[in-house]
């Protein structure tokens, strides 16, 4: 089934839950910056949770559907687009993302999933290498995507309980596991508000706030870094690495954001602000388990509403 891109929006890419096993080759995991929203968007239309969907950034697209389809949009909220529920689009119908209301990235799933070839074990777009997704790039006006045909009966007119959602906010507090060089930076990371710079992207969120001055000195050797790693370059403005970040880094590591809070990072738009609080690896794992439990319950509840035929 064809989905025509009438207007592409600012940066609309095909994403899934990322690739594993290629970090040693310098290839980041990538995938949805907000994996929670992508997973739920898939579940809402009866898909397996890791199918490729569209990641919409700040300015959404306008899409035309050649045939009737079930879709769902989760994550950032936009005018004209109902969020966190399945939506029936009729043949020839259009979805036009209006003004952004909250958040940065929305995920549009379609029953059956978008039909793109896997590259290096993932169907997501890695913009820095020009691979995966739709021709290795962000969508452009007049592109035509294909979705895998699927016939499903969904019962409409309901949406998921918002209490299961992460605490999305333009001013969130995210939890941080202190990094190897945490002590060299004292309390500064945990005491102020950090503003999100416009130069932020899928590789990293650039922050400006209290300067993080390092007590130690000297160059560090490059080591592996991970999504969530908070690096501090010499200018003292921290960078939170995101899903498409480089695999090695040589800046001091003041901390690492807990995975459970990646959705909150992914929804930060330029001008938003973030605060940090301390956590531990054990607590981060417990939070991740609790999130998985919530998703499992959601999945169970949804499977009663979604029937394949």
């Amino acid at each position, binding site marked *: 089934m064809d989905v025509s891109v009438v207007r592409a929006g600012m940066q609309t890419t095909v994403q899934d839950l990322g690739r594993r096993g290629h970090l040693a080759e310098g*290839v980041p995991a990538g995938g949805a910056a907000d994996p929670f929203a992508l997973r739920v968007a898939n579940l809402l239309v009866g898909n397996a949770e890791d199918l490729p969907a569209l990641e919409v950034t700040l300015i959404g697209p306008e899409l035309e559907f050649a045939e009737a389809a079930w879709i769902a949009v989760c994550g950032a909220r936009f005018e004209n687009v109902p969020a966190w529920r399945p939506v029936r689009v009729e043949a020839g119908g259009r979805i036009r993302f209006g003004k952004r209301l909250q958040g940065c990235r929305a995920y549009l799933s379609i029953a059956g999933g978008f039909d793109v070839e896997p590259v290096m074990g993932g169907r997501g777009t890695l913009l820095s290498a020009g691979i995966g997704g739709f021709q290795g790039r962000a969508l452009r006006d007049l592109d035509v995507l294909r979705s895998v045909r699927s016939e499903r009966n969904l019962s409409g007119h309901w949406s998921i309980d918002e209490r299961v959602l992460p605490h999305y906010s333009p001013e969130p507090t995210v939890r941080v596991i202190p990094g190897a060089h945490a002590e060299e930076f004292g309390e500064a990371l945990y005491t102020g508000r950090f503003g999100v710079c416009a130069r932020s992207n899928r590789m990293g969120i650039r922050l400006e706030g209290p300067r993080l001055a390092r007590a130690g000195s000297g160059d560090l050797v*490059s080591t592996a870094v991970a*999504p969530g790693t908070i690096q501090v370059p010499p200018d003292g403005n921290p960078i939170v690495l995101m899903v498409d970040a480089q695999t*090695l880094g040589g800046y001091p590591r003041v901390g690492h954001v807990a995975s459970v809070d990646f959705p909150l990072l992914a929804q930060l738009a330029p001008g938003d602000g973030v605060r940090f609080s301390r956590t531990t690896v054990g607590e981060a*794992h417990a939070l991740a388990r609790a999130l998985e439990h919530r998703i499992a319950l959601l999945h169970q509840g949804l499977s009663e509403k979604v029937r394949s035929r």
Partner: protein
Amino acid sequence: MKLEPLGDSAVLATLEAGNGGASLARVLSFAEAVVAAKRPGITDVVPAYGTVAAFYDPSRFTKALGDAYGEVCRFLESCAGRPGAAGPAPAGRLLEVPVCYGGIHGPDLERVAELCKVSAGEAASLHAGAEYLVHAIGFTPGFPYLGGLPEALRAPRRDTPRAHVPAGSVAIGGSQTGVYPVDSPGGWQIIGRTPMALFRPAETPAALLRPGDRVRFRAISPQDFSSWT
């Protein structure tokens, strides 16, 4: 071995050694032991400069509920003690990489030569005359960090990084040299360009080079560069 959390899904192991950190051979041998153990839930093993990072899926380490991190640490320690872990790493291959030095392909060659007080031709010969060791792969897909740059060619990174460095660019950054496998921003001094693809996503592995490999550069003409297939 010092272990530290790299967030909640990775552990960074720093191998103990004398001055200058653990040898590349030891790092690769340990990384190989971790990979060879095929422990379910370990998704990636990333060696670099005296360290090896093991990425894991916490939900696969639930034997001791609440201590996935400890379980991964114990697993890594067991790999270090495994016979063969301290043994020789697989011998690296020697690869020849053709480079067209200077001109439009190496816009910083003149500047590097000036900084190093040699002619551009001498700088190119020095670069092509040495044998390099791949210490790590990262930064961008397939990017090799190469050690072994002649001291006479050391040149600081550019004050302002370029927003766009074309794929294949061969560059010098401090005491290291490297090749940009994909178009990317970059702050190193670009002295030439290779027509050879160092990142080939359709192949396995996609990165042409691996840590431990050795590299020699061979100077080619602009005509050779253009006609390379």
